[in-house]
């Protein structure tokens, strides 16, 4: 029997935007298909194993907690996370977690180093926080065509991708990475970062399935009765105006 082994990074600290919703989606959508599901939380100071998990998740946190996690990520977990990404494990980083994926997060005079899985840099600007419903269009391998991800964003940081880096999607409504580029999130292979919380997966059940497929190396999953999931997705899209 297949099993999805999920590692939640800093579940006590990086959980501000109901990140549990994302975990519940993965858990139940595996369970209904008789796919095993194992969730391990790894906190500050804990060693991280690079090959015991198929999917690494990191959510959003308050500023102070995010700084604590940034340091720990670089000092304690960087090697294992890089190794996991290289062998194709899925890394999903949302909101504050997304900011930590890059090289640096600049808060005024302070520059906080990130784990550097992707080439991006985030600057906390004086301007207003970027808050609201958001919808983006994504093109993912294994999907028949462009699809929509809907969510809610709430971030003070502006994220700029390095020259070789691809965004997760194109902004249809909302602000995205910096409110100007039209880009939202980042994707390099199975490493994904995004500002869409809301939480992301309940609003986009199809994307939860895409992540499960990528994490387990499966071409297809048994279909489920997704009537409520479909309605919830449409509800979130409507809120964003798409």
């Amino acid at each position, binding site marked *: 029997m297949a099993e999805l082994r999920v590692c939640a990074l800093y579940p006590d600290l990086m959980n501000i935007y109901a990140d549990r919703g994302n975990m519940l989606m993965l858990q139940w959508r595996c369970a209904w298909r008789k796919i095993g599901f194992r969730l391990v939380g790894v906190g500050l100071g804990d060693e991280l194993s690079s090959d015991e998990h198929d999917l690494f998740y990191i959510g959003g946190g308050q500023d102070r907690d995010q700084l604590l996690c940034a340091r720990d990520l670089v000092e304690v977990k960087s090697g294992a996370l890089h190794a996991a990404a290289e062998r194709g494990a899925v890394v999903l980083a949302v909101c504050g977690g997304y900011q930590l994926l890059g090289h640096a997060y600049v808060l005024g005079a302070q520059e906080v180093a990130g784990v550097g899985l992707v080439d991006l840099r985030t600057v906390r600007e004086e301007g207003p926080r970027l808050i609201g419903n958001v919808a983006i269009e994504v093109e993912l391998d294994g999907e028949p065509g462009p699809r929509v991800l809907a969510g809610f964003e*709430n971030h003070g940081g502006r994220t700029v991708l390095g020259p070789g880096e691809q965004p997760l999607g194109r902004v249809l409504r909302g602000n995205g990475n910096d409110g100007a580029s039209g880009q939202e999130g980042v994707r390099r292979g199975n490493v994904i970062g995004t500002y869409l919380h809301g939480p992301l997966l309940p609003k986009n059940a199809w994307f939860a399935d895409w992540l499960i497929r990528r994490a387990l190396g499966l071409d297809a999953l048994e279909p489920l009765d997704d009537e409520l999931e479909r309605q919830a997705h449409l509800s979130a899209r409507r809120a964003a105006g798409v």
Partner: protein
Amino acid sequence: MTDPRLDPRIALARGVAGVLRLGGRGATSLPGRLLMRLDRGALARLSGRLPQGSAVISATNGKTTTAAMAASILTGAGVRLVHNRAGANMAGGVASALLEALRRGGMTGELGLFEVDEFWLEQVVGELAPRALVLSNLFRDQLDRYGELETIADRWVQVVEGAPADTALALNADDPLIADLGRSRSGVLYFGVEDPTVALPGLEHASDSKHCRRCGTPYRYEAVYLGHLGVYRCPNCGAERPQPTLAAERVELRGLRGARFDLRHGQHRAAVELPLPGLYNVYNALSATALALSLGRSLAEAAAGLERVKPAFGRAETVMIGERRLAILLVKNPAGANEVARTLTLEAGEHDLLGILNDKVADGRDVSWIWDADFEVLAPRIRRATCTGTRAAELGLRLKYAGVPPARIRVEPALDAALDAALAGLPDGRPLYAVPTYTAMLSLRELLAARGQVRDSFA
């Protein structure tokens, strides 16, 4: 003394209030907002006319109910009050209440009793210089509107530091974010629950302030009462819950019917039969009692007032629709939702639920929070869930992933159709539990008023 009503700015704002009343809009915060734009010192000048000064309550959860409880205690003790209306709790709402109370040569009331929005507390306290300030809790609420919890806590440090030395400060000992505000102040009245039998098995998922306010180490909890409220200690720096001098003991939760407990303050003790449900209302009762004690009232007066209190606007209010009973339980955030879920599990049988999830500004546009609430506790007890509101389907989905079978979940975005469907399927003699967000509660009351089932949609 000159009549303040002759001040042209006040006259204009009062005129606007009069026009709004004629238009059937009721008093809103608009006249007060207008006045404050015309006259920045208006709050201080108007509240200065209150012979007994004012008292201020703030919290994420329970402001309105606590104010209603305090009003019941104080009016029972013969104090004439000026207070703001439910929800009108920003500076403009307070100013509107003061404007409305203005009479020739004085005020209609002796004491101002104001619930104040977390974000507006600094300004309002600065201008009112209240005699008593009661701070009850800080929970994760509307992040899209308020930013992070610690940011509000930091602002409240400024509020407390800036409050006059003779303002009596009452703080919830069980909320580490609140209790720590009293760190550098003497004479603080701390209140809390002292009853391990109502403690939870552990921290709930939505718990917010799990880490020491001073050094960042996770607190150790000897007892968790509600969210992050409980008996805590930091194993690193030793910061711990202050010993409450006002406590609720021997607490007995009786489902929706209410709660019974003993209030203890020093040598004094009083039994209370509270007609409002849940441990959250025991905390509200403690806050209201702390306010009354701070103003020199007795514990006996507090207990008597608490027993007379009526549910505030949609907070555990029951409405009869023909033979059918509709109980309305406002839910605004995960901590509140968890308490409502806990209260409903104390009621026998399987429940019919009408969940109304809106995403207007006053609800919080970000509906993420439903995934932080522990609906799992309630899921096995749900017979039928009708989900409505602007984000109906997302609430339905949340319940599905909490373990409610999809066949028991119905999504009907239109409120009137949802209410009819929920009532139509209701078994004889069973109540319908409506669980609305803030604007959803207002819509529900308006709908019921339009159907003649409640007298006044702004009761």
